[in-house]
């Protein structure tokens, strides 16, 4: 196994593979920044180019591209409140307010550096998990998936910002939105309003881009300022500060990375869930929850780390079982097959292809290192965008919003969705309703329903008694009651 570990490294650093990795990184950088244009689509479009490559070269290229997307996706999330990737929504919650405070550099520095650390933790998880991967993943069935989603939903109590009641209501609306489409049980169409467009449900990207993007544009126009609303008086806090924050809060970063990697392992959950669980954890582990939603750097560190570490985790079931942990992994799987790499026991066997799997680990490590390094160098320039007069930026951001939504599925319906959810988002901001729980509800709703349905159809009621399920039930109870308990403790402290 150790030879495979080293061999993986030398293969990635060798000449053609390294060059391909840099090429992939370049593509991934751009794709990650553009909202709506997803890493999944990019990988699929690059597939024809990998035919002539050797397995390690192709891995370096594709993974170089993919691992960088999650890192740079946070950049548009923070600067424009438009997620560059669906896994970068949570970074908007505190990242963008930091930009408004004039702390764009700090936010970006924190996001990038925590992304780097997260990616490394994810890569390490992939490497360490290889011997135990199969039994580990086999232990998780549909009941356990449902419980993990349930825990994710309970974390929503920390996304409320102010009113927990509003958070629940927003989440309920999100759950309802996720129900649109074909029900797995009967195959009947629910709430589709007779539109073919809605058969597979309300698409997530236009929803998110509209819900978060349009209100931002409106606010910029109304306030008449640049992205950084602080006038010439405010100081622009720099990138170094962000990096220092990451190191200062290293415990949080490591914990969120581990969470991300673990969640990334579960097929189907991935990026949508990991970022919110990490954000929830960041909120709950802070003594002063009020700062969140207004520009608390921990709110950037948590999701920033998690949305990168999940990539390492996601490779585990993809490589060891051929079960893709998400849409991007599904396409990567196709690429592996093209290269003649059949996922399964062979990929973790040191006699066979473990070195290729290790080269994936190394690609994640090295590509992120280089990408973050380069980004940090240019960051101070990128931050200058936040000082440009708002009305110049508005047409471009609006353009990005509509194009990004359209690029999702090439369907005009997505443009309509952007308008509708844009209006909803604006209304929610106006009346101070939190939007994050709504997104959480949408992402988790159908996952929850499907897994619950499978669990009851297959196991009757006995699934509630499975050991991991019980552990997760306990965790969710703890998560729900933790904030109440913390408040009581603080009140007691004040009294004493």
């Amino acid at each position: 196994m150790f030879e495979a570990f080293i061999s993986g490294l030398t293969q990635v650093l060798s000449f053609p593979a390294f060059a391909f990795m840099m090429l992939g990184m370049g593509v991934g950088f751009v794709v990650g920044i553009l909202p709506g244009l997803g890493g999944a689509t990019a990988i699929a479009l690059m597939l024809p180019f990998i035919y002539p490559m050797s397995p390690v070269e192709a891995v370096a290229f594709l993974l170089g591209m993919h691992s960088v997307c999650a890192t740079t996706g946070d950049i548009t999330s923070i600067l424009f409140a438009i997620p560059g990737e669906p896994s970068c929504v949570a970074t908007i919650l505190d990242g963008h307010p930091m930009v408004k405070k004039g702390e764009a550099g700090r936010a970006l520095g924190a996001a990038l550096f925590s992304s780097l650390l997260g990616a490394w933790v994810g890569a390490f998880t992939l490497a360490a998990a290889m011997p135990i991967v199969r039994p580990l993943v086999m232990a998780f069935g549909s009941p356990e998936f449902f419980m993990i989603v349930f825990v994710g939903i309970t974390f929503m109590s920390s996304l409320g910002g102010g009113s927990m009641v509003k958070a629940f209501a927003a989440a309920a609306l999100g759950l309802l939105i996720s129900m649109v489409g074909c029900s797995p049980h009967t195959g009947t169409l629910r709430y589709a309003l007779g539109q073919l467009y809605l058969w597979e449900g309300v698409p997530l990207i236009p929803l998110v881009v509209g819900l978060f993007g349009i209100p931002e544009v409106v606010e910029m126009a109304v306030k008449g300022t640049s992205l950084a609303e602080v006038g010439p008086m405010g100081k622009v806090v720099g990138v170094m500060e962000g990096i220092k924050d990451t190191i200062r809060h290293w415990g949080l970063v490591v914990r969120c990375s581990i969470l991300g990697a673990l969640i990334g392992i579960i097929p189907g959950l991935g990026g949508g869930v990991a970022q919110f669980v990490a954000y929830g954890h960041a909120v709950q582990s802070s003594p002063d929850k009020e700062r969140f939603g207004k520009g608390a750097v921990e709110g950037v560190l948590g999701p920033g780390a998690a949305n990168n570490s999940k990539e390492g985790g996601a490779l585990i079931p993809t490589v060891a079982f051929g079960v893709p942990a998400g849409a991007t992994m599904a396409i990567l799987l196709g690429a592996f097959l093209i290269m003649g790499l059949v996922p399964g026991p062979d990929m973790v066997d040191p006699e066979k292809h473990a070195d290729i799997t290790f080269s994936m680990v190394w690609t994640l490590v090295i590509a992120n290192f280089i990408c973050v390094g380069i980004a940090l160098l240019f960051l101070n320039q990128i931050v200058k965008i936040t000082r440009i007069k708002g009305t110049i930026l508005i047409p471009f951001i609006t353009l990005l919003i509509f194009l990004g939504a359209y690029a999702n599925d090439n369907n005009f319906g997505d443009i309509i969705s952007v308008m509708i959810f844009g209006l909803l988002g604006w209304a929610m901001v106006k009346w101070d309703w939190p939007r994050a729980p709504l997104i959480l509800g949408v992402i988790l709703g159908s996952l929850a329903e499907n897994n619950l349905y499978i669990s009851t159809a297959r196991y009757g009621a006995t699934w509630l008694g499975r050991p991991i399920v019980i552990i997760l039930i306990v965790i969710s109870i703890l998560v729900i009651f933790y904030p109440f308990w913390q408040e009581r403790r603080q009140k007691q402290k004040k009294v004493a």
Partner: protein
Amino acid sequence: MVGYSPGGGYDAYARLLARHMGKYIPGNPTFVVQNRPGASSLIAGNHIYSVAKPDGLTFGTVVRELYTRQLAKEPEVKCDWAKFSWIGSATSEVYVVMARAAKGVRNVEDIKKLPQPLFWGETVMGVGPTLLARAMEDTLGLEFKFVLGYGSSADYAMAMERGEIDIMGGSWGTLIAQRPHWLKEPRLVNIIMQGGIKRSPHLTDVPALGELVTSEKDKRLVLLIDAGNQTARPFIGPPGIPQDQLNLLRRAFDSALKDPALLSDAKKSKLAIDDPLTGEDCAKLAKEIVNVSPDDVTAYQKLLTQKK
């Protein structure tokens, strides 16, 4: 035009053809692949049928069982399977029914002997493998408990490995390409049966559903289900493409599928090119499907939902 997002099987075949078909058409045009996903390729299907111009410049690929919705008379179907300008089908496929070896089930008789129904895993009712499952129920007197809601075939394949489901249906090609370890000793699964009227030349020691059913009516039902597999990767254009244009496209399609460069790429990508069908044969088949008797349609429609 592909009715699915990039990365899936239909997209892969489309891009394969896009790369190699141009050289068989005078002027060596470049093919551009556009994705128009939605409603399990029905959006693309409708688009190709009514919006695309029949000038021979646009054609696409959709799910092989698109005719199911037409037979079920769903109102959203705005296209006619038989009226498309058929260019051809890149390959045919065989569906097999696999059961976990641990259940000790080797054939249909063994299934009948079990005290409890087997758990059959799938995404939703109405897709290819479930049609086969329901046909087995209706024609052979079996009973399954359907466990639905899995996100994709990869998800229920994993459930199979976990023992969460006992039996599933899927393409034979995909099984040997992506999950060969299922068949290596100790086997994970036994192949119970294959779909279709008769045994495929690739799989001669597994009984076909067509052999196991007796009545003519049942045999017609089996044919109707399997029709999709004969045109497993269909390529269609809008109705009304001028005949010489259509012939040009058809011949280019056929030649491309014999092109050594295409075949070598296909082999690398594990895309099978088995028994491709010419446009003419596809069109004939499509006509037969669409014109089945109302009784047969009723029997078919019963397969789309679980037994009451």
